[in-house]
């Protein structure tokens, strides 16, 4: 056969057989990517509890209480001290700072996007925002507020004339609305409204192809594939609310301290990843300085081999380029958050 004839047949094979096969294979992948993207669509509404339905008055009161440092024994710590809107509702520190400036054992987690979860805190010991409020308020290490005596929380709030109208409006059916339950419910309503804004990632989910870079798109594929991040960091907020021992060197038993099951020793809650660039350093003990170090931590399969170590933690064999792509993807989760107006507190 002459070279010309070989060339003739070669080009026919390429155009009539190989090219269509490649075309069909590429398009067959597209429906899979589309189905994957659907899993990350933002919810339409914020959920509220039947026992604590939304009202504007409760939200208003809740916001005042959230920013009010008088809810602490020292008069210097409010919920907003550790859950500061300027630090993506965390405090930017490796570990929280509590009453009398003592450094605590765990990092302040963000309180953004938690209306969709029931089991809260690093160790899962409180249910819902409403169940979490009394914890730090009464903790001797944190706000150190007492419930008995003249300096007790309710007596203190009652003595502030300016709160009277807000409590009356928020709980109009109650003769004495100054209860711990009402304070928890009001703050809980306000906290439920703290939701991260639209991010470039959301625009890409909605069909805007140039919303994120090609490197970030590769990062998304790795996040869902080789890097295995979505085994825990799944759904629109990138957390399924699960508890795992991921193999950090920390001696903190986490959930295992109060839920005495083997699998829950050294287990901590999976945090969400929206606005994650603003929340370093990372992990419950602030031990990883930046997002690259976080991915490297997972890449080596954690640092502690224990019986309780999650079966999901194993070396990932990601290349340097792949680690960078995963980090680039996480940067696309930075939302256009609404600005927060600081309230004028009652006197």
């Amino acid at each position, binding site marked *: 056969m002459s070279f010309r004839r070989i060339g003739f047949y070669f080009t026919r094979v390429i155009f009539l057989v190989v090219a269509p096969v490649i075309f069909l294979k590429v398009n067959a992948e597209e429906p899979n990517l589309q189905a994957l993207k659907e899993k990350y669509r933002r919810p339409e509404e914020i959920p509220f509890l039947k026992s604590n339905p939304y009202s504007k008055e409760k939200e208003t009161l809740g916001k005042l209480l959230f920013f009010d440092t008088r809810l602490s024994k020292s008069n210097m710590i409010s919920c907003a001290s550790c859950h500061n809107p300027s630090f993506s509702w965390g405090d930017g520190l490796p570990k929280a700072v509590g009453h009398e400036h003592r450094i605590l054992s765990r990092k302040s987690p963000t309180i953004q996007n938690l209306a969709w979860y*029931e*089991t809260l805190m690093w160790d*899962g010991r409180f249910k819902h925002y409403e169940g979490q409020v009394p914890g730090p308020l009464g903790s001797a290490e944190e706000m150190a507020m007492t419930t008995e005596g003249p300096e007790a929380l309710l007596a203190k709030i009652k003595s502030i004339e300016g709160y009277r109208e807000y409590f009356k409006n928020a709980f109009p059916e109650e003769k004495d609305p100054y209860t711990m339950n009402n304070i928890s419910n009001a703050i809980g309503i306000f906290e439920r409204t703290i939701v991260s804004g639209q991010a470039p990632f959301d625009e890409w989910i909605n069909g805007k192809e140039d919303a994120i870079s090609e490197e970030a798109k590769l990062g998304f594929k790795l996040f869902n594939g080789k890097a295995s991040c979505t*085994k825990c960091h799944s759904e629109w907020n990138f957390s*399924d*609310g*699960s*508890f*795992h021992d991921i193999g950090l060197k920390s001696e903190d038993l986490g959930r295992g301290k109060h*839920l005495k*099951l*083997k*699998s*829950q020793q050294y*287990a901590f809650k999976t945090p969400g990843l929206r606005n994650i660039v603003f929340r370093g350093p990372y992990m419950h003990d602030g031990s990883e300085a930046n997002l690259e170090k976080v991915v490297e931590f997972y890449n080596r399969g954690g640092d502690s081999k224990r019986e309780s170590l*999650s*079966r*999901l933690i194993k070396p990932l064999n990601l290349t340097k380029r792949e680690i960078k792509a995963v980090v680039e993807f996480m940067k696309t989760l930075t939302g256009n958050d609404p600005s927060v107006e600081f309230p004028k507190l009652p006197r």
Partner: protein
Amino acid sequence: MKISEAALICAVLATSPGMAQKGDGAAQKDKKETTGKPTEPPSGTGKVHVISQKDKKFNIDKIKVKAGDKIQFKNDEKDMTHNVFSLSPNNTFDIQVQEPGGSSTVEFKTKGVTEVECAIHPNMKLKVEVE
């Protein structure tokens, strides 16, 4: 395969279920005749209900069982472990870590409501009403 071999296999398959049933019936009949007691299952060997765990969910969120019944918890995930447990005082248990493909059976002895959860995935909840 030859037709004669196929015919032989078909004949074996066609008769074996019938043989098994006949065998069970014969055993039951013998028991009735020899002991005189009614042929009901002995106490403590209640029904076994099967619950599947898949996509980080139980296949149902509520079930009514009789005291003495059992629930077989199956992990039908591809690569996710679970840890089904309950702290309800009437039926406290901990299956511990269950790998994909694993199966563990728990007896629900005491009447009342047993709240069952997965320790790893707290959104997985099953309410067992033991009657």
